[in-house]
């Protein structure tokens, strides 16, 4: 029996263990499927639409109604209610029934005609940061467009009171180009990172379950024998079926985001696959390591849960890494998936050359240095198995 045969022997043994366990089969098939499908379903709309807002129109003029009908035509929001007073509207704003209040002041039309630049006030519920951001830009663009179409005011500015025009002029234009994710789409922003975060939790917990179930069912002797007595071959062989399945899931997810959905993938799939493979192996090593802390199944599960649960928060996607404190950065660095996600995003967006993602790969490779320690923990135990 050469080494490769020993590894394959252990892989065979693992496959038969999986076949006998509905629990492990579930964690490789329908559990990830449901999890991924839910995350995708939450954000599938990509850009929030028809967010409910309230209106307080104190002017009741033809002009104020014109502004409101322009608002209605925006896809981002819908006017849910008209209120007589700001207090009534504020009640619903804090109750979360509406995300914003639009207040059109008294004598609005008249003051526009006079050229005294009245203001429409928009109150946003900034507790909901994402919704208020989306609404703010919708309101800005609707009102800006609307203001631009009012011609009698410009005549007025030219003929009668030019100083008004001067006070508000902005002679520099600003051109804003989003690089990458040019669609301003939340699906791409959140889901492309959330799916790998969820996937990383699965990769690790599934491996812990595989190790734990084996010891629980007293199959460790069979496992070692299936690899011809070689512990390293047994450990590698046990990882192998999961490496294959998790690669399929991982690549499938990335393909879904950048292949099925209309977002471009600029980089190399080979680099991405390499990063993914490395990430899987590291999480599996950590799973071996976590189990060997106490050689206890449920303790290993608890450690894994505590370790992996906050994967998404520490990735630096929703909140930038460069603004995190030292503890948070350390925590980010300790999670292999953080380094993977930087490789994925830079590959997808601009096909970053290897040298610019080298540091992420180096971080990942650094995790491999736990291998001897993990191996030694099992080696010292394995004598008792035979």
């Amino acid at each position, binding site marked *: 029996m050469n080494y490769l045969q020993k590894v394959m022997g252990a892989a065979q043994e693992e496959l038969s263990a999986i076949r006998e366990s509905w629990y492990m089969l579930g964690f490789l098939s329908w*559990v990830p499927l449901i*999890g991924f499908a*839910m995350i995708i*379903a*939450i954000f599938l709309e990509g850009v*929030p*639409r*028809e967010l409910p807002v309230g209106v307080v129109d104190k002017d009741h003029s033809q002009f104020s109604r014109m502004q409101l009908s322009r608002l209605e035509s925006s896809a981002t929001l819908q006017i849910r209610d008209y209120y007589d007073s700001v207090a009534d509207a504020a*009640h619903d704003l804090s109750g*979360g029934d509406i995300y914003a209040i639009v207040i059109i002041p008294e004598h609005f039309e008249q003051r526009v005609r006079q050229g005294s*630049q009245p*203001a*429409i*006030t*928009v*109150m*946003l*519920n900034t*507790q909901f*940061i*994402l919704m*208020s951001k989306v609404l703010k830009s919708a309101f800005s663009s609707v009102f*800006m467009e609307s203001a631009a179409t009012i011609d009698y*005011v410009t005549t007025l*500015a*030219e003929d009668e009171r030019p100083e008004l*025009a001067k006070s*508000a*002029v902005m*002679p*520099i234009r*600003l*051109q*804003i180009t*989003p*690089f990458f*994710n040019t669609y301003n789409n939340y699906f791409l*922003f959140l889901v492309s990172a959330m799916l790998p975060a*969820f996937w990383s*939790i699965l990769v690790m917990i599934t491996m812990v*379950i595989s190790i*734990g179930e084996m010891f629980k069912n007293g199959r460790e002797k069979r496992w070692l024998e299936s690899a011809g007595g070689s512990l390293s071959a047994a450990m590698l062989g046990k990882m192998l079926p999961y490496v294959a399945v998790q690669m399929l899931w991982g690549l499938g997810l990335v393909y879904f985001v950048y292949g099925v959905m209309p977002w471009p993938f600029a980089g190399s799939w080979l680099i991405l696959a390499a990063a993914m493979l490395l990430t899987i192996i590291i999480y599996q090593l950590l799973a071996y390591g976590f189990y060997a802390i106490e050689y206890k199944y*449920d303790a290993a*599960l*608890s450690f*894994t849960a505590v370790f992996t*649960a*906050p994967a998404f*928060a520490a990735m*630096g996607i*929703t*909140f*930038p890494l*460069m*603004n*995190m*404190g030292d*503890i*948070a950065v350390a*925590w980010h660095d300790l999670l292999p998936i953080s380094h993977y996600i930087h490789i994925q995003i830079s590959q997808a967006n601009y096909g970053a050359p290897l040298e610019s993602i080298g540091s992420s790969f180096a971080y990942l490779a650094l995790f491999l240095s736990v291998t001897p320690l993990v191996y030694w923990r099992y080696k010292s135990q394995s004598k008792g198995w035979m």
Partner: protein
Amino acid sequence: MSFLRLLREELLAIFKDMDLLLTIFGGVLLYAFLYPQPYLKEAVTALPVAVVDYDKSDMSREITFMLDASPQIEVDSSYLSEKSAKEAIINNEVSALIIIPEHFKQDLYLGKEPVISVGADASYFLIYGGVVEATMHSVLTESAMIQVGDLLKKSVPLVTAKLQYTPFKTEFINTFNTTASYINYVVPAVYILILQQTMLIGMGMMGATQSQQMRVGVGGYYSRERVSTVMALRFISFGAIYFVHMLFYFGFTFDLFGVPHIAKMGELLLFGFSFLMASLSLGVLLGALFKERIYPTPVILLTSLPLVFTAGFVWPLESMPQWLVWLSSLSPSTPGIQGFLRLNQMGVSFDQVIGQFGLLWTQTAVYSVSAYLLLRAQRKWYLQDV
């Protein structure tokens, strides 16, 4: 046996179980401090931005200076061309680039509306938003206001001024979390979920352990006493522990991280009690459903990410498929997060969370009755077996 002696046995069963303690004390304490870490700076500051100044006039230097003065960005003027600045983005040296074109000052005087270009990586929304906001503010407000007054007197044709005149303005007012702080945004909601998830894991493990023991014929107070008594013990033990946890989260750690809490104490306690009751009921039910103590941790762990994002504080419920909204309302964390945010962050009166309050008590009723029936059926089943 007296109720107090039973309670002592129940508490002993909890405090002798190290793996359970790791989750319901270790996890709760660790996350209380760890989870807010990424967001400690609250908002984006000092993002490195490359400014490429092709004009090199006093005016372009002044704009660069103003950009540097804005809190969100820190200017790096060492990049001399657009190409090198773009490479710097790819290499993660800067997060955005701003280009001031050649003849900027000259064009401005001629009324030609020179264009300042801003490019940023929109894959990281917060970085992108911060850069855009800072540039808009510096360039549009500051520069235009200071410079334009005398520019106009000299040479800018009034036609330009006319085109840019705004007949009315839009003013935005932020209500609640007015600084759009990420810590106030994420932490209050995620804390609720941490409380629920660790409690469910703990109660799931405990219930499963005891039914495992009953199955193999090892009895205890949990098999001798009436089902209703055992349930009452579980409610009291975990309820007391988590009541303390809740006070610790909402009192101590909120203060520590400067999260505002504006609810009236009595209302907060009443709502908190309802949330605890619903979670406790679900916990007892899960304890009866899980056959082995190794199942709760992986299952609960995997529900966390979907539960955060279906609670409606990040992504609007209006933009989610209805079946997901329904599914998420099975979890006490969903009405819990919604209610606590409204009471404690947005300061509503209690009648505005009556919907969430009602849902929590519906969950309490449904889950505890189901748990009772299930536990009784199991009891009969196991005792027959023995």
